[in-house]
């Protein structure tokens, strides 16, 4: 994320003191020098409610992930129930795609299966009905 110039904010209903304990006692053993981004404490779940990820019954927050652009606009999100972890690689791919589209000022779009190095599409009236010439279904699945 640092390479992509993306700022990460993690949020749970735990207090900042528990965040410190988790960082100091466990996470710092997984990540050298500990967690490099702010770990936010949403005790009471107000921000979780605002983002639709607060579980009123469990009193915790589900695995919600929001990509926000430099204008403060939500570009994408994904919310999972707790037992299933995220695919960080897919998050990175989406950020790379959103950054490319933004840098092209909307002149390029990334088709299904796009990843860095693969062909983008240039939306225009001429492309309508002609995507089949530019993009093959197999590209959605190609590694």
């Amino acid at each position, binding site marked *: *994320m640092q390479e992509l*110039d*993306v*700022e*990460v*904010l*993690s*949020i*749970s209903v*735990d*207090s*900042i*003191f528990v*965040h*410190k304990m*988790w*960082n100091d006692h*466990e996470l710092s053993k997984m990540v050298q020098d*500990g*967690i*490099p*981004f*702010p*770990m*936010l*404490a*949403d*005790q009471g779940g*107000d*921000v979780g*409610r*605002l*983002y*639709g*990820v607060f579980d009123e019954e*469990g009193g*915790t*927050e*589900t*695995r*919600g*992930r*929001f*990509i*926000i*652009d*430099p*204008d*403060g*606009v*939500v*570009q*994408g*999100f994904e919310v999972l129930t*707790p037992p299933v*972890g*995220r695919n960080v690689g897919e998050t990175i791919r989406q*950020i790379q795609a*959103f*950054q490319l589209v933004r840098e092209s000022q909307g002149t390029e779009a990334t088709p299904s299966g796009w990843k860095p190095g693969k062909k983008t599409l240039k939306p225009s009236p001429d492309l309508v009905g002609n995507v089949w010439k530019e993009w093959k279904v197999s590209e959605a699945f190609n590694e």
Partner: protein
Amino acid sequence: MPEEFKAGCQRPSSRQTSQPQTIEKEETAIKEEKPPMIKVGKPAPDFTLPAFIKGKFANVSLSEYKGKWVLVCFYPGDFTFV
């Protein structure tokens, strides 16, 4: 930059969101008046929360990060996998 604060015995009470009128009401009121759904292409609601940042405690607002790409990750709890 986030403003650091000292670790006191009191719980930091700096919670703020951009929709305080819905949030500050009683529990029942929240259920009737749900906050707006998050939508892609729409502004992310601002918030301010106390945070642990590299050994320090500070308040962090989403709005401080204007001009940068931000990834906000919620998770069920510390000491679980993320």
